[in-house]
C-alpha cells in the first residue's frame, strides 16, 4: 500500500526533535520548523517532581479564538525557537475546537494546534497535528497527554464529516516522541528519506492513527 505524503504547507515542516539531555526520557517533546533554521538545542533545568504522574493535576481547556490567539503565539515563541508564519495561525483558528490551550492554575501552559485536511480521493477528513507543546516548567505533569487524549476523544465524537485519520511527522531518531504517540496507538506508516535539510538524521517517520470505526477504538486512560 502506498501512502502519499502531502507537503504540509509551503512555509514549514514540523518535526519532532529530542532535546539533548538524556538522563531522563522526556515523554513529551516540542515540534519545530527546521527548514530555515539549524537545530537549536533547548536547555533547561529539570526539576525532579515528586508528585509524578499519579497525582492528578487540574487542567482545563479552552479553544483558540481571535481574542486569545496571542496566548498561542507566546507559547510557540517560548517552546519552539521558530517564529511561525500567519498561515499557521489562520489554519489553527479555522480548525475550530481542534486547536486548544491547556490551563493549569489559571495559567495558559500548553497547546495543541491542528489542521483539518480533506483526504485525497474523497471520503472523509483527516487531522494533521501541527504542534503540541507545554512550557518547560510545566512538563512531566501529564498535560501533553491530556491535550492529545482530549483531541482524540473529540475526533471520535465528530459524527458529521467523520475524521478517518490523525497523523503527524516525527524525526526518525526521536524515540521519546515515537514512544509517546505509540502509547496512543499511533503507528509508523512510512519513512521519508531526506525530509530535513539541516538535521541529522534527515529522515522522518509518518505517525498515523486510523479511526475507521470510532466507537471501537479505545483511548488509553
Amino acid at each position, binding site marked *: 500500500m502506498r501512502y502519499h505524503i502531502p507537503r504540509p504547507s509551503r512555509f514549514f515542516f514540523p518535526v519532532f526533535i529530542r532535546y539533548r539531555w538524556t538522563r531522563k526520557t522526556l515523554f513529551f517533546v516540542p515540534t519545530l520548523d527546521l527548514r530555515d533554521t539549524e537545530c537549536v538545542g533547548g536547555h533547561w533545568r529539570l*526539576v*525532579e517532581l515528586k508528585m509524578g504522574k499519579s497525582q492528578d493535576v487540574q487542567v482545563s481547556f479552552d479553544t483558540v479564538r481571535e481574542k486569545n490567539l*496571542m496566548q498561542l503565539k507566546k507559547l510557540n515563541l*517560548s517552546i519552539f525557537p521558530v517564529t511561525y508564519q500567519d498561515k499557521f495561525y489562520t489554519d489553527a483558528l479555522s480548525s475550530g475546537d481542534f486547536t486548544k490551550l491547556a490551563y*493549569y492554575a489559571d495559567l495558559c501552559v500548553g497547546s495543541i494546534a491542528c489542521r483539518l485536511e480533506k483526504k485525497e480521493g474523497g471520503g472523509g477528513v483527516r487531522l494533521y497535528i501541527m504542534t503540541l507543546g507545554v512550557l518547560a*516548567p510545566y512538563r512531566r505533569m501529564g498535560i501533553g497527554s491530556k491535550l492529545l487524549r482530549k483531541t482524540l476523544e473529540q475526533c471520535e465524537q465528530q459524527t458529521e464529516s467523520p475524521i478517518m485519520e490523525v497523523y503527524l511527522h516525527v524525526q526518525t531518531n526521536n524515540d521519546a516522541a515515537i514512544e509517546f504517540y505509540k502509547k496512543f496507538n499511533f503507528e509508523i506508516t512510512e519513512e521519508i528519506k531526506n525530509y530535513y535539510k539541516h538535521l541529522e538524521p534527515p529522515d522522518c517517520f509518518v505517525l498515523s492513527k486510523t479511526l475507521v470505526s470510532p466507537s471501537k477504538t479505545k483511548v488509553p486512560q
Partner: protein
Amino acid sequence: MGTSLPPKEANLFKVIVKSYETKQYKKGLKASDNILKKFPEHGETLAMRGLTLNCMDRKAEAYELVRRGVKNDLKSHVCWHVYGLLYRSDREYREAIKCYRNALRIDPENIQILRDLSLLQAQMRDMAGFVETRRQLLTIKPSHRANWIGFAIAHHCNYDAAMAVQILEAYEGTLEDDYPPDNERYEHSEMLLYKVTLLQESGAPEKALAELNSKESKIVDKVGLKELRASLLVALNRLGEAEDVYRYLLDMNPDNYGYYEGLQKCLGLRLQGTDGYTPEQVEKLVELYTSLRAQYPKSSAAKRIPLDFLQGSQFVEAAKTYIAFFLSKGVPSLFSDILPLYDQRGKADVLEEIVLQIETSLKDTGSLPGGSYVEPPPTLMWTLFLLAQHYDRRRLYGKALEKIDEAIKHTPTAIDLYLVKGRIMKHAGDRVAAAALADEARSMDLADRFINSECVKRLLQADLVDLAEKTAVLFTKDGDQHNNLFDMQCMWYELASGDSYWRKDMLGKALKNYLAVEKHYTDMLEDQFDFHTYCLRKMTLRAYIRMLKFEDTLHSHRFFCRAAAAAIRCYLKRHDTPPKSSEGEEEIAVAGLPPNERKRLRQKMRKAEAKAKKAAEEKAKEDEALALSNAKSNKKGSQVTKQVDDDPDGEKLLQVSDPLEQAIKYCKLLQENSSGALETHLLAFDIYFRKKKILLAFQAVKKQLKLDASNPNVHRNLISFFNMVDNLPAAETPGEKLVRQVIAVERDALSILGNQPLLEVNRAFLEANKDSLLHRAAAAEVLALLSPESKEEAVKIIEDSVNPPVAEGGAIAAGVGEWVLKDCVAVHKILLTVMKDENAASRWRVRMADLFPYSTYFVGPKSSAVVEAASQVPSSVSK
C-alpha cells in the same frame, strides 16, 4: 384647574394635563389647539401648552408661551406652578422656588406644589424652609406616612436630631400594634434603624440601645442591627457585651476588618496616637490573634492584621508563613496587600530577606523553605513576580527588571507579568516602553476590559493620544468614543487625556477634558434630585442621609481637585501666553515678501480656505445623511439625535475674554471644599498675583504659611509677593494707601521674615534646607528674581546640590539616592526656562541620565529613546 372654561373646554384641559403626565405630548398639543381656537388668551392652557412643548425640546417657544400664560392669568396657581416646573427642568432652582412661592400664595394648601417646593429646598439645602414646607404638608395630610418621615428628615437635616426622634415617636403612636403588615416589614425596619441612629446622633446612646432592644423583632436587617448594637455598647462603655456582639459578627464574616477593630477596642487594645502599640498590648494582641486564627483558619484578615503590629523575630515568622501561603496559592495581588508594611521602619528589609530565601529554596530544592513537598511550578513564577514588585518599590529598577524578565521567561503567558513590567518601566521613567508593554499585555487577552483600560492609560501617559483613543474605542458602545466615555463619566480617561494634551501644549483640548470632569461633578449634584422622592418612598433613610452628606462634600473629591487645578493651570498658561490672532499670523507670513509673491500667497490661502470649507460642508452633509439613516433604522428608538460636538478642539472654551476670571471660578470651588490642600492656595496665589489683587494674594500666602511654611513653593511665593509689593509704584488713591498699610503691618508681624531684607531671608532659607534639592532650586529661583545679576550664583546653588543616600531601614533600598525623577525634571525645567542657561541645563541632563538610566526625558542610556535610535540605525543600513 381650568375653572374659567365652559364644560367642554374644561374637559379638554383635563386631557392636556393627563396627556402631559402620561407623556402623550402630541395628544396634549391637539387638545390645547382646540381650546385656544376659542379662547386664544386662556392663560392656563397657554402655560400647559408651553410645558408640553418643553418636553418636546422646543425650549424657546415653551418659555414664551408659559410667560404669556402667566401674564394673562396672574391669579392662577396653575400658571405659576407650570412656570416653576419649567425652570426646574432647566435646573434653575432658585427661580423655580420663587415661582412655587407665588403659586402657594394663591393656593397655600396645594399638596402637589408644596411637595415640589420641598424637593427643591432639600436640593438647595434651604433647611429652614424645608422644615416649614414639610410641617405644612404634615398638617394638611397627617394620614400619610411619607409626610411624617419627611418632617423628621427635615428636622434632622436642620441639625435637630432630637426633634426628629420626637416626630418619629409621634408617628409610631398612630400605628396599630400589629404593624407592620408583611409587605411593609422592610420599610418599617429601616425606619426603626434610622430612629436608633438619630438617637445615637443626638447623644442618647442609652435610649438608642433600649429602643434597639425593644424593637429587635421588627428589624429585618440583622447584620445592621448587630453592628449598631456593638457600636452603641462601645459608646456606653459596656465592653464585655460589645465583645460578645463582635465575636458573633466575626462568626458570620471573619474577613471584615471593622469587626476586628471593634473587638480590639472592646479588649482595650486600641491604637492610641501614632506611636504604635505598647509591648504589653502587643503581647495581648498576639494571644488574641493566635486564638482567632485557630478559630477561623480560612480568614485571611486574621493572618494579615498581626503583620501590622508584630516586630522583630515575631514579624519575621508571621510574614514568612503569610507570604509563603499566598505565593503557593498563586495570588497575584499579594504585593499590594503587603505594600503598607513598607512604610514601617525596617520591615522592607525583612520582607526582602524572606522572599529571597523562598526564591533560593524553590530554585534549589523545588520546595518552600522547610517545606516537605514540591511546590507546583507557578509558585516560583509568583515569587519572582513579587520580588520584581518589591525591587520596584525600593527603586532598584535594574534588579526589578531582571526578576520580571526571569518570570516572563518562566511563564510567558501570564498577563500580569507584562502589566507589572510596564509599571516598573513607568516608575523608572520610560513611559514609551511602559505603553508598549501594556499593549503587549492587552494583546494577550482582547476580551479583558481592565487590561484594555490600563493600556489606554499607559498610552496616554506616553502621549500617544490617537492610539489611546483607538484602543479605548474597543470597549465603548458602537465605537462612538468620546460621547460614550463622557456619558459613562469615565473620569480617569478624561484626566489622563487632558494631562497628555497639556504636555503637548494643546490647551484647548486639555481644558475640554478637564471641564468635562467638572461637569460630571455638577451632574452628580443634580442627580441627587431624584432621590429626594425616591428614598422617602422606599424608606431607605439611612442611605439617604449618607447620600446628602456625601453630596455636601462632593467637590472635595480627588478627581475634582485634580481637574479643577489642571483647568486653572490651563487658564493661567493662556493668560501668560495669549494667542496670536490668526490675521496677525497671516500678516507675518505675508510681510517680507515682494508684492507679486504676496498676492500669490494670498490667493493660495484663499483657495485653501475655500477647499476646507467645502470639505467641511460635505462632511456635514454626510453626517446628516447618516443621522437620517440611523433614525430610520431604529424607528422605535427614542428621538434623541446624535449631538454634534461643535467645538472638538476646545478652542471656544479657551477664547474667553479673561481667562483669570474663569480660573477664579474654579479656584473658589477649591477654596470652599479643599482648603486643607496646599495646592489650592498655591493656585489662588498664582491667580491673584497675576490679577494684582494684593490682599487676596497675601491671604493665599498666609494660608500657605499656615499649612507648610517650609515648603519650597511657599517660600518662593512669599518672597516674590513682597518683592512685587516693594516694586509697586507709590500708592495714590486712599484705597491703595490703606492696602499698603495693611500689608506693612502684616509684614512686621510675620516672624518668618523677621524684619530682614528679602535676600537675607532667602539666604537663611537656603542655609536651613541646604540638603534638599527642591529647596535649593526654590532659593536659587528667588535669588535670580531678587538680583538678576547673580544668576550664575543661582545656577551654582542648583548644580552644587548633592544627592544624599536615603537612610537605612526605609521603604527605599539603602544606597539609593533621595532624589526622585519628578523633582529632577522640575529642576531641569527651572534651569531651562527660569535661569535660561542652556549649558547648565544640558550639564544637568547628562548628570541625570546617569542617575536615571531608564528615563526618556533625560535620554538615559537604557531608555527606549536611546535603544530605539540605536536599533533603527542598522535596520536602515541593511535596507
